[in-house]
């Protein structure tokens, strides 16, 4: 059934109704049509108003959503920029970290080398100290033997100590003899 067929059917029905009302109320068909048109106009105007209001509220909502979309876009752009700058900072810091690690490794190697040198020097110092002790000892003994050979007082003391030892042995023998009696 087409739109025009429907319209023709409706028109026929409207005609039939208007004829029935005009007969009932004994009013002219044109008057009824006039009031019907007024009513219909009013109904359609009200419907239009409702739809208008809907459209206005939709427009407002749309504008707000548009505004929010723009704000969100701005936020996303801002965040994107911040992320990019953070990434750049991270890359820079990573490079710095690698440099510092290399520098630290270098310093550790230098410290290890210095420790080796210090150990070597310590060994040298210990060797020198040993040599010094040996030298001091040799000097002391040489000094003593020179004094024994050259100084008369040392020779006299040598004889004195020898005689003391002999005296000690004699006294010891006497004491033992006394004790055994």
């Amino acid at each position: 059934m087409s739109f025009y067929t429907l319209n023709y059917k409706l028109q026929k029905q409207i005609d039939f109704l208007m004829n029935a009302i005009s007969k009932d109320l004994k009013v002219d068909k044109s008057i009824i049509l006039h009031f019907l048109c007024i009513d219909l106009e009013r109904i359609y105007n009200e419907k239009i108003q409702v739809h208008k209001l809907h459209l206005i509220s939709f427009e407002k909502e749309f504008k707000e959503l548009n505004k929010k979309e723009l704000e969100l876009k701005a936020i996303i752009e801002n965040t994107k920029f911040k992320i990019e700058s953070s990434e750049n900072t991270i890359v820079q810091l990573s490079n710095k970290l690698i440099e510092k690690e290399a520098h630290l490794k270098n310093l550790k190697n230098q410290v290890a080398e210095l420790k080796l040198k210090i150990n070597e020097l310590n060994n040298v110092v210990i060797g020198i100290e040993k040599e010094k002790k040996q030298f001091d000892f040799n000097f002391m003994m040489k000094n003593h033997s020179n004094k024994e050979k050259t100084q008369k007082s040392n020779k006299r003391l040598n004889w004195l100590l020898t005689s003391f030892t002999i005296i000690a042995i004699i006294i010891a023998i006497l004491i033992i003899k006394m004790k055994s009696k």
Partner: protein
Amino acid sequence: MNRSLLIILLGIVAIWDTITTVYGTYTIFGDGAIQIIVSIGFALILTGYLLRTIPIIKNPSEELIPVGAKVLWFLAILYDIFTSFTGNMDLILGNATGVQKVLVAIGLTIFVCSAPIGLSKLWFDPDN
């Protein structure tokens, strides 16, 4: 104090040390002529060893003989302390009794045993 005088005084105390060493060794070995001769020989070696305290202790060499000499020196000191203590208790403090006998004997022993060491120091290294 004059060095020679100090050596003489320490020498006199070292005489007593030698006497106590002979006497102490004799009391261990017992009676007999051979025992007396061995005691005397032993005391002479010990005294000689103690008189050479400074050259033995101050020798920095780490070879076997100098290190061995240090060990023997230490044993000699211990034996000297033992014989000196025995000699002092028997010969000097024979009539004493009680704790003071032991205390005086210990003091005398330390004094007597340090004489040969002091003598060695004055004899070999008087300048330091």
